[in-house]
């Protein structure tokens, strides 16, 4: 293996196959040994070390690939003599960045989960799904063809389905999993249509060839039409996977899964797939600026919409779920404003601090014996100091307090929004920033301050969990350095790195720009501090009262969107299904057939009467027949 590509393909193959191999192993061990102590040890050590190996493989590639590279494993589907898709990886800045996030955060969450899931009868099964998820996510990230991405795309949806309904004995969990899968599939339909449209135009589904063909220019109006269709499809796919309006409804319910799952899948990695996809296919979108406009609007609207719901949630995980939807909205806002690097930057920082927040929430839930309602928490900062301090960093990061990571990345998005001069987007973005810090402050205060309102005595979580919290807290604090603006003396390393594959308007380096950016940063941090302060005063002495006015019921019930969907779509589909079955199949088709059958039965009953058995009558019929024949012969003459 002297050839560098051979080494790369070996390393990346290992990176992807380790989790897959793990998935098979843990399943087998879990089945074979049940939930014995030894089995649990083997599975937890194995799963974490496999993930670590995978992480280091990606890291190795990251450090050794200059620009971009492609490694091909084998041919998968051949469409015709000219075109085929392979199992192949595209290693470029975009995919390697996401790959590092996935395996890095993934390793940490595996470690955390080994403590969190301790003693669960489905221990082996859990790590099977989790590792399978990482495999799918790596396929999604690295595949060099849209079909390969789709494999990962649906694969993560599958694992998400299994993990949400992990405790499947509760009907509710099973329903949540099913809902997630089906809603995601609606988005996947868009993805599928996009693939069809692109294949129609370019006759290939390999991403580099597609993008090269798009960038080569000289496209006919017809081709542009299909590219537009493809963009619509991809946007639909992205709204499904990344929980944006109108397909966000599955994510809050997905909190039925174990908390590490919510952290890994429903905050840090899978839900960012839509952002990744839209960045990856950016050249297509650049031909359809109006679709980018729509995307920005969807993102902005989702951000403010979800944030407004988050304020009224009492389940700690639901608050974080709506917060995730809202933050993803920020990322789409950035993608829509042609600021993919900003979106990616926020994706990375969000992965750190949201994973931290979820895992912190998990630690609280674990410490309070599966209590998730914040009304029954409070004042536990003394009992769980490590959890408290790490979550505090997470809260401050997401609220946008400088110089934590969330501040830097959010500020960049706000900066782009400001300069887009679209007043509604600016309004959405700044209001959301305020609401975010408010509901996060609310969560923080209700959980850790005031009087304890719960039932069980709180206790700090085991080291495997708190250690992860500490690492993530450090990352959440310093991740901003990745792309610290040049205007403020940073190096914008991420910007430089990603610019090779995505395009984003370059910032100005004038004194004027410096002051304007400083002004904006000032406003955004003030907004963040204001939200936190307001929450502090509102909830410091929380004793159970909440907003009572009827108008708030709309927020509390999430604008009744679930009910509206159920009423307008699900129930009607059920009715149509029933009507087709009983009406079309039963009444029309079988009715017609049975009608034919009964007509012929009745007719045969009539004709049977001719068979009387009387010879004279038969003779009469013979005579009549003979006459008729004669008449016939005569008339034909």
């Amino acid at each position, binding site marked *: 293996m002297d050839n560098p590509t051979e080494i790369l393909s070996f390393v990346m193959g290992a990176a992807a196959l380790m989790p897959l191999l793990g998935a098979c192993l843990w399943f087998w061990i879990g089945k074979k040994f049940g939930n014995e102590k030894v089995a649990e040890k083997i599975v937890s050590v194995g799963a974490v070390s496999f993930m670590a190996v995978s992480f280091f493989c990606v890291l190795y590639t990251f450090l050794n690939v200059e620009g971009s590279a492609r490694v091909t494993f084998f041919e998968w589907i051949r469409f015709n003599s000219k075109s085929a898709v392979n199992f192949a990886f595209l290693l470029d800045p975009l995919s390697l960045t996401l790959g590092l996030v996935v395996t890095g955060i993934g390793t940490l969450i595996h470690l955390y989960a080994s403590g969190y899931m301790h003693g669960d009868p489905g221990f082996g099964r859990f790590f099977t799904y989790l590792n399978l998820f990482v495999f799918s996510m790596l396929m999604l990230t690295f595949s060099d063809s849209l079909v390969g991405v789709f494999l990962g795309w649906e694969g993560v949806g599958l694992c998400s389905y299994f993990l949400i309904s992990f405790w499947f004995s509760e009907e509710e969990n099973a329903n949540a999993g099913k809902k997630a899968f089906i809603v995601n599939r609606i988005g996947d339909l868009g993805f599928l*249509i996009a693939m069809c449209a692109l294949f129609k135009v370019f006759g290939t589904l390999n991403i580099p060839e597609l993008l090269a063909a798009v960038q080569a220019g000289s496209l006919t109006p017809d081709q542009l039409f299909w590219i537009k269709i493809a963009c619509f499809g991809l946007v639909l796919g992205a709204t499904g996977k990344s929980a944006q309006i109108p397909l966000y409804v599955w994510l809050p319910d997905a909190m039925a899964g174990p908390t590490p799952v919510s952290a890994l899948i429903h905050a840090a990695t899978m839900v960012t797939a839509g952002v990744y996809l839209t960045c990856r296919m950016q050249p297509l979108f650049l031909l359809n600026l109006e679709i980018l406009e729509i995307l920005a609007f969807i993102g902005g609207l989702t951000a403010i919409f979800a944030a407004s719901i988050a304020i009224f949630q009492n389940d700690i995980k639901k608050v974080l779920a709506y917060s995730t939807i809202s933050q993803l909205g920020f990322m789409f806002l950035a993608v829509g404003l042609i600021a993919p690097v900003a979106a990616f930057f926020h994706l990375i920082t969000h992965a750190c601090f949201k994973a931290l927040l979820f895992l912190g929430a998990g630690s609280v839930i674990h410490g309070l014996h599966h209590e998730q309602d914040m009304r029954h928490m409070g004042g536990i900062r003394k009992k769980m100091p490590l959890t408290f301090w790490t979550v505090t960093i997470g809260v401050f990061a997401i609220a946008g307090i400088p110089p934590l990571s969330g501040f830097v990345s959010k500020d960049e998005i706000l900066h782009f929004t400001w300069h887009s001069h679209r007043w509604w987007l600016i309004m959405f973005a700044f209001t959301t920033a305020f609401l975010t810090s408010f509901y996060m402050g609310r969560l923080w205060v209700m959980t850790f301050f005031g009087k304890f309102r719960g039932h069980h005595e709180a206790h700090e979580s085991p080291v495997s969990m708190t250690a992860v919290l500490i690492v993530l807290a450090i990352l959440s604090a310093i991740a901003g350095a990745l792309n610290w603006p040049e205007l403020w003396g940073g190096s914008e390393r991420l910007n430089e790195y990603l610019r090779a594959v995505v395009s984003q308007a370059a910032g100005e380096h004038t004194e004027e720009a410096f002051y304007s950016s400083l002004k904006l940063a000032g406003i955004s941090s003030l907004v963040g501090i204001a939200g936190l302060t307001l929450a502090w005063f509102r909830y410091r002495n929380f004793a159970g009262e909440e907003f009572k006015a009827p108008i708030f019921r709309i927020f509390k019930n999430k604008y009744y969107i679930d009910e509206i969907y159920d009423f307008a779509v699900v129930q009607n589909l059920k009715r149509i299904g029933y009507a087709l079955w009983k009406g079309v199949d039963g009444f029309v088709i079988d009715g017609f057939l049975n009608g034919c059958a009964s007509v012929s039965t009745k007719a045969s009953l009539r004709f049977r009467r001719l068979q009387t058995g009387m010879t004279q009558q038969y003779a009469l019929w013979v005579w009549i027949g003979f006459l008729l024949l004669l008449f016939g012969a005569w008339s034909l003459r």
Partner: protein
Amino acid sequence: MLNENYLLVLVLFPFIATLIVAFTRGNAVSWVSISLAAIYFVIALLGFSVKELHYTAVWYAPLGLSYGFYLDAYSYFLILLSAFLTLISLYYSRGVIHEKLAAYHALFHALQATVVACLLCDDLVFFYVFWEAMLIPMYFIIGIWGGPRRIYATMKFFLFTFAGSLLMLIGLIATYVMYYKGTGQWSSSFHSLLEYYQAHPLSVETQRWIFLSFIISFAIKVPLFPFHTWLPDAHVEAPTAGSVILAGVLLKMGTYGLMRFAVPLFPEAAAHYAMPLCLLSVIGIILGALVAWRQTDIKKLIAYSSVSHLGFVTLGIFMMTEIGWNGAYLQMINHGISTGALFLLVGFLYDQRHTRDISAYGGLAKILPAYSVVLAIIAFSSVALPGTNGFIGELLIVIGSFQSKVASWGWVVAASTAAVLGAIYMLHLVQKICYGKNQDPQNEQLYDFRFREWVIYIPLVALVFIIGFYPEWLLGPVREKTMQIFSTIPQHLR
């Protein structure tokens, strides 16, 4: 290298097996029958490297009748599927069926014999004979070992398909006579007919009539909406193994007929009717999926899902694109594997609990973990999850159809909603059986997979993934064959 004698072995072996099994008595029946099926499967496997084989012997020269057999990729993989599913169904039936054992096994071998003969036939007269003959063993299998409403079901099944076959007979005779009128010679060899009609196409008007007579017969077999109502009834009443072969093999004869005879012989007529047929396919896809969702009988649910899946196959065919045809062929095989497995999985529960009511189960993932895993894998292969066999077929059909000139891409979008609807009914099924709380204390007594079940399901599950990750072994030969057929279809019709 195998020569034409291989074809004779392929055709004659199941007939001989039928006779042997029919005259075996006592405890040996099952094992003799299963061994014969296994040997046949191995024989079928041997032909893997064969690209094309042709055998002809004169039967009655004045009328141009011959014993013609022809093997290519299209017929080969269906024969392989048939041999595989027959072997598995017979193995499954051991210990399940106790009455009239010799007759039961003999009928399955007879079914295999007629199916293989029908697939290999190069002579239209033979084709018709075996096409009709296929009905008879299935008629008895459902009628003797079937459920309580088996008489109604067999009547419906028989009358439906038989009515279609008679129409086809008229079409076949017309094809035969037209050839005589044109050349002054009699021939019923498919190849000479094909060659002739390609060189001298019939007038469009005539083509359309003959094509219609073919299409109704094939559409009933597939079944295409609105000819599908016999299928749920037949499946519900059929014994498990009967359902497996019915769904896995017999339905494919309809789509095979379309790809082999109807479209290549009368491309102009096919193009003329393609649009309405695509519409029927799309209706079938959506109707099948929605109705499947509302079923409480598990077998009926799967039967309606078949209607939906085969709608995809016919859509791929009538959209008249090469990629779509490859997808359609692959989807035929996939449907045989997935739906066959689903029927076996239902049978596994039915044999123990004697009910197919979906609400009788629940929470089985706790009681039957292995069963639940296999059910989930097969269910996801049925909803075409990437990485499983179903995905490759569906992707090719959708991508191919999207480029078609026959109908607007909007239809493909409508058909693709089945991706969502399929997930709805399949996850509904999985959830009701495996998740939630156990609904009935009787379920606690259920046993999980034993050796026998693993023997059945390991190959099926393996195939799901083998085709899902490396379809080329199947797709390659099929692609070549499709290319060959399409090279004979005029450019403006594709």
